[in-house]
């Protein structure tokens, strides 16, 4: 007897296993999913761009022989004491509270050894990071947790945080599990309660007020410190223009691949724009105002390699910032902890419940038994190595494009692998002179 051909079981694209699992989880728990990190979607990204390299029409620089400088000045517009970094790869703001004290120390050690800056976060400035950071950027956030004029004056720059890429328009969240005595004390709140940081600043509302707020910060700090304004990637053309109008020395632009300590998954995955799409709009705003290179642009959100650094800079950034990648360099999500990740119901590379404070790597926790596993000296060395490798990689690419400084990279050095990336980055699709959305030759 012949078997009758059967239609094989077919899973729905719309109602996939992942989607259905989340529906069941929501139905069982009655709460949205909260996690750390940035968007996990497959987004158009730097991977979709390629450098063209030099040949006959351009000539390259000799690798390891001819100089390709990497330094950057930040805050040259108004600040008396602009910052000079040896590499344009900075460490993004991450809070003490979200991270352990030793992890903050390691970030300071690694960044300082590599000649770059690190940044505080929501929760104030700790001695660990001030003591170990040669150049420390102090975030000025809506919550104002830990904010005081002495730390403002101890900082090397001030970053007014308006938004971040993982959650443009959203505030912060640090759940009760991570509120130790020390964290609670720094934030003037009872131990063990959920801490919600506001999404708007308490004492200014728009660009005109922000301009006056920046005046106040400059007056308090004797006009010495560069003032950064950090925006989430939502409307980068207008937000960059308004940041310049408000008096920023530096604009920090964070795309949706940029991480957060904790927020709703639905927020992370559905609000904001990919980093790639944000950069050209911000650069255009600066160019339209005649402020490109005068107000520096720092780009963050998904920077992982020297190639990403070079691509961001070719699109017009002056520097970049890394957060998630820095944590990975310290040891976050390392397969060495796989057995413990399994006990937490996850696996190395996918662990993102940083808000629960159970990090086996001892980085995103306030539990002494866990954070004492983490060696800040070793962590700092690993971060330094990683920053040095990324810088070398970016130099390698820049030399191949004939550039004697990373800042000399330009959009003309790039082509795109996909129509989407070509449209977002504003560079031609590989093998064509077509930039979607533009008429005529680029």
């Amino acid at each position, binding site marked *: 007897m012949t078997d009758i051909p059967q239609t094989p079981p077919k899973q729905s694209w719309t109602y996939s296993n992942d989607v259905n699992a989340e529906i069941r989880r929501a139905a069982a728990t*009655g*709460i949205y999913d909260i996690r750390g990190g940035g968007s996990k979607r497959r987004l158009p990204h730097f991977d979709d761009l390629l450098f063209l390299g030099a040949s006959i029409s351009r000539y390259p620089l000799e690798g390891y022989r001819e100089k390709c400088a990497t330094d950057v000045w930040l805050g040259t517009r108004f600040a008396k004491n602009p910052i000079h970094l040896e590499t344009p790869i900075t460490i993004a703001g991450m809070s003490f509270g979200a991270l352990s004290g030793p992890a903050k120390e390691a970030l300071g050690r690694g960044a300082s050894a590599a000649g770059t800056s690190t940044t505080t976060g929501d929760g104030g400035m700790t001695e660990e990071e001030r003591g170990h950071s040669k150049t420390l950027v102090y975030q000025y956030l809506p*919550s*104002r947790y830990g*904010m*005081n*004029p002495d730390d*403002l004056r101890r900082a090397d720059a001030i970053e007014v945080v308006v938004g971040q890429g993982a959650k443009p328009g959203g505030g912060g969240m640090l*759940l*009760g599990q991570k509120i130790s005595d020390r964290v609670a004390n720094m*934030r*003037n*709140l*009872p131990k*063990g*309660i*959920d801490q*919600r940081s*506001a999404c708007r600043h*308490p*004492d*200014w509302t728009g660009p005109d*007020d922000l301009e*006056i*707020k920046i*005046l*106040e910060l400059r*007056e*308090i*700090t*004797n*006009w010495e410190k560069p003032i950064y304004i950090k925006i989430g990637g939502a409307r980068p053309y207008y937000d960059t223009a308004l940041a310049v109008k408000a008096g920023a020395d530096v604009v920090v632009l964070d795309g949706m691949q940029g991480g957060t300590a904790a927020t709703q998954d639905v927020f992370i995955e559905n609000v904001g724009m990919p980093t790639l799409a944000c950069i050209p709009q911000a650069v255009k705003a600066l160019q339209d105002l005649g402020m490109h290179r005068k107000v520096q642009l720092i780009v963050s959100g998904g920077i992982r390699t020297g190639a990403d650094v070079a691509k961001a800079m070719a699109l017009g950034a002056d520097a970049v910032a890394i957060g998630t990648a820095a944590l990975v360099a310290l040891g976050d999500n390392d397969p060495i902890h796989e057995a413990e990740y399994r006990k937490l119901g996850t696996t190395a590379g996918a662990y993102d419940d940083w808000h629960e404070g159970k990090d086996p790597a001892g980085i995103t926790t306030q539990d002494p038994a866990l954070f004492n596993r983490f060696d800040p000296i070793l962590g700092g060395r690993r971060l330094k190595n990683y920053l040095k490798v990324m810088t070398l990689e970016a130099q390698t690419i820049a030399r191949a494009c004939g550039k004697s400084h990373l800042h000399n990279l330009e959009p003309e050095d790039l082509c795109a692998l996909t129509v989407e990336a070509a449209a977002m980055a504003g560079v031609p699709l590989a093998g064509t002179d077509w930039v979607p959305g533009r008429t005529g030759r680029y």
Partner: protein
Amino acid sequence: MQSFDLTAQGLRALNSTLHGLKEQTNETVWEIVNPKGAHAIAVGLDAPIDVTVRGSTGYYCAGMNKQATVRIKGSAGPGVAENMMSGTVIIDGDASQYAGATGRGGLLVVKGNAASRCGISMKGIDIVVHGNIGHMSCFMAQSGNMVVLGDAGDALGDSLYEARLFVRGSVKSLGADCIEKEMRPEHLELLADLLKRGEADHLAKPEEFKRYGSARKLYNFNVDNASAY
């Protein structure tokens, strides 16, 4: 007394001069004339000096103050005494929105009315308002004391943490998780001291106030409270 003409000498010179004063300074009494509503007057002070501003001020007067006493002989613009650490700020007139925002210590006295969001996110400051306060005052207030001799606007103490609120007049509405609480003897004692320090003990008695504080129901997320957020 040292006198400083703000219009003639400029803001940068003013703040720079005041920042240069050390704890042991003999130049302890200052007068600022012609403020003309300028922003960021006397911000970031850190010495036990007495500064009188003869007129009204713009945004952020006495912002992040430490140790100093700042007297405003007029009204104050938004964010007066924001993030104050210690010292005293006394306003003879009214205060605009965000007065005392995120203040960590010291005493803010408003002899007129204060607008919306007075004491927003306060973290230890004491605020005494002789008149009324506007809507959303003490939003997410973490600690410290707010004393209002007049009335409070809508949504007083929304998402309140541990700050203590004392209102003598009416409260248009309470914000999420803010409730009236029992006035115990220790609160009357605290209030008597605040009224005295706030130059209001001749205007009101502690027994005339009601106390408001956090119900603490929103301290840890619970989906059944979702409509309250």
